[in-house]
């Protein structure tokens, strides 16, 4: 991108900010640009932080799309490259480049695997004045309705109940290497200069499940987002996979005090529905979720969330129950909270829970597993450019031979330098009794942190950082772990990116 064009883009950005009415709105926009663009840690859970306001990480198995944890946001990237290594070998790398010309934006992404074989290619083009985006090649479709994605078998079944979604999906290249995905094309139209405006989208191609023996299946989808008045929105969608039709209708409405959503899906498997509603009456907030899946042995799942929040404290109680597998059920009760202080130690975030999973197998008959768990994060001290906090987790599984516990303890050091560079370092020691499992913090290139299950004692250390020089940014992630037998495992990912300021036109590729 030439310097005059870059200067022009910057001027458009400044003019746009200048045209936003109100100091608060400008401040909010600036805060978004400053804080929302860099990778965020911990609170940026992918899709499934049910409470939405409490920042403790979730277990990986409870996250809707765990593969997205490794995706590096590439908003405004003119060039980005990424290399991942594990145990000293170079398993995969990818690179993407983009160019801007007036209202047009075009980009290409290439992904290679360990033996330098080209695994995926994606081309994108966006016209911001009309609001049209086209993607060809390896296409990742994110943000479909929860049940619609499940019935089309392009999204995994979430362990926690999600909310009904009535927005257009995001379509672009897969940002992380994965074997399953769509090879085809996607097209979308968004009403320009509108956040919740109308849109139409479609995708089609062959879906690969990632198993070498399985043949790719034909997959296509078509949908729209239609505003109804000022406070409601509807999103009809249809999809076809190997000739089987799936139809979906999602609606969402909200006012100042409450919001509600519903998703209904009909397919060859049967009918499925998801409904949620919430009321916010400060300091309290209530939310209920309910799901029905026909065809399941236990078709109903539900969740109740009650939350109270004050300036220095927030606490939430979550009670849920639902199906787990074909014949099992899982129940969960959680107390989650955050206690802050005006000065000194804090805040203290905690999650205390109890879960029970029952099932029936031909080999073992009726099985029941009960587990109690606790997660804690305490901010110890904060200074200019530094923050230190400690974390601890405990899982206690009740078995026929007594309780088996897995614990972990460690700390996190966050270093920042003039908003140009940041580094997050974590160290944790894990103790897992025989037959027990423990959690340890896993950091991901996308900026999130999630709890990983460990079955062996050991010490783990990880670091994730990013530095910016002008429009270039360089990021990296290193993880090392050594277990009780002295076995070591290491993994690393680095990425480089050059940004261009075209956010003024409302373009976001991710």
């Amino acid at each position: 991108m030439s310097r005059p064009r870059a200067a022009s883009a910057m001027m458009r950005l400044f003019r746009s900010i200048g045209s936003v009415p109100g100091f608060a709105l400008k401040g909010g926009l600036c805060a978004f640009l400053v804080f929302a663009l860099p990778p965020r840690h911990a609170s940026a859970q992918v899709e499934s932080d049910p409470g939405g306001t409490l920042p403790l990480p979730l277990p990986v198995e409870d996250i809707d799309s765990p593969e997205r944890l490794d995706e590096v946001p590439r908003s405004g990237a003119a060039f980005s490259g990424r290399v991942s290594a594990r145990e000293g070998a170079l398993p995969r790398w990818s690179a993407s480049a983009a160019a801007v010309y007036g209202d047009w934006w075009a980009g290409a992404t290439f992904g290679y695997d360990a033996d330098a074989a080209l695994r995926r290619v994606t081309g994108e083009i966006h016209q911001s004045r009309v609001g049209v985006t086209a993607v060809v090649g390896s296409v990742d479709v994110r943000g479909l309705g929860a049940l619609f994605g499940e019935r089309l078998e392009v999204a995994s079944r979430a362990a926690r109940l999600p909310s009904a979604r009535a927005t257009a999906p995001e379509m672009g290249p897969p940002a992380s290497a994965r074997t399953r995905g769509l090879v085809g094309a996607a097209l979308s139209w968004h009403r320009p200069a509108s956040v919740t405006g109308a849109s139409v989208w479609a995708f089609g191609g062959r879906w690969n499940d990632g198993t070498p023996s399985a043949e790719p299946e034909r997959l296509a989808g078509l949908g729209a987002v239609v505003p109804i008045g000022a406070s409601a929105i509807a999103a009809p969608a249809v999809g076809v996979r190997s000739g089987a039709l799936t139809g979906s209708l999602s609606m969402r409405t909200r006012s100042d005090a409450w919001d509600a959503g519903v998703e209904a899906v009909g397919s060859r498997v049967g009918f499925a529905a998801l409904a949620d509603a919430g009321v916010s009456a400060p300091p309290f907030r209530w939310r209920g979720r309910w799901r029905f899946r026909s065809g399941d042995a236990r078709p109903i799942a539900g969740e109740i969330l009650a939350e109270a929040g004050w300036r220095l404290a927030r606490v939430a109680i979550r009670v849920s129950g639902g199906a787990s597998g074909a014949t099992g059920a899982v129940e969960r009760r959680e107390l989650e909270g955050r206690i802050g202080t005006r000065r000194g130690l804090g805040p203290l975030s905690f999650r205390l829970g109890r879960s029970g999973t029952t099932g029936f197998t031909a080999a073992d008959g009726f099985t029941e597993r009960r587990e109690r768990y606790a997660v804690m994060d305490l901010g110890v001290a904060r200074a200019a450019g530094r923050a230190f906090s400690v974390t601890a987790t405990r899982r206690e599984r009740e078995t026929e031979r007594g309780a088996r516990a897995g614990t972990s303890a460690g700390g996190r050091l966050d270093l920042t330098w003039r908003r140009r560079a940041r580094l997050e370092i974590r160290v944790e020691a894990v103790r897992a009794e025989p037959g027990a499992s423990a959690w340890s913090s896993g950091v991901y290139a996308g900026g999130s942190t999630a709890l990983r299950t460990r079955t062996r004692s050991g010490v783990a250390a990880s670091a994730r950082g990013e530095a910016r020089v002008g429009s270039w940014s360089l990021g990296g992630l290193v993880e090392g772990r050594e277990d009780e037998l002295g076995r070591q495992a290491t993994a690393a990912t680095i990425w480089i990116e050059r940004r261009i300021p075209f956010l003024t036109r409302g373009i976001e590729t991710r």
Partner: protein
Amino acid sequence: MRPRACVSGIAALAAVLALCEAAAIPRHAGAAFELRDASPAALGAVSMDREPHAFFEDAARRGLGLTASHASLYGVDGLTAEEVCGSFATSRIRVGLSHAQVGAPGVREHATCFTVREAGALPVALSVRAERLVLALEGEPRVGAWALGAGVLGRGALRGVQVEIGLAADRVLRRGEPGRIAVQPSVPWTIRLHARGASLEFADRWEGDGRTSPRVSLDLRAGGALALRFGRGERPGRTGAAAALRAGRFEVAVGRQDDQHGGSVSSVAVTLLPGGPKP
């Protein structure tokens, strides 16, 4: 016969050091360098496996300081631990260089440590520790390893009580002969509560193989001249006591630790304190 002598020597040292900690013998048949400090301050805090907190608050002192200590381990003839440490402190940084040896005639572990830590009452203070670990067996060539660790200390307040929480990644990076040097990573942590004239410390050390050894210690200070430290630890059960007396820039300390197996360690240390303003 040389390899057999070497292995038996290492096994003997490992057994002795396991006795020092009265913990499980390291899984790997090599020198684990688990005894890091046998000074009176460490014995009083029942923490021979980590660097202890000083008897007095010396954050305001600047300049050069020297410490020498000698410890007799478990009444075994010739089984001793010696350490010499020099430090230099400025208003922002404290640098330390120490050399310690532990063992019996013919079998010795040598540890040379270089430590850099941020000084002053920073809310978040960092430290880095590099170690050269050498195992010396009589008649055998020396074998060594490098180890690197880092730590962070956070300071806060809770209802008027000063709280320090420290956490370290000890020996997480290592280079050396894996066969004879069986150093493992660990995560020691401390929670220290400060009140006027007294400090209470809870500490533990989470080893890579899952072992822990929780401990608690109490510091009592009578002005700036006398300090007493009492400690109690579990897994293994152990009790420690130490006293330090100051006169001018000199400090003399004695300490003793007894464990549930009947073993005892006693030591004495002499310190030349840094100059500069007194606390």
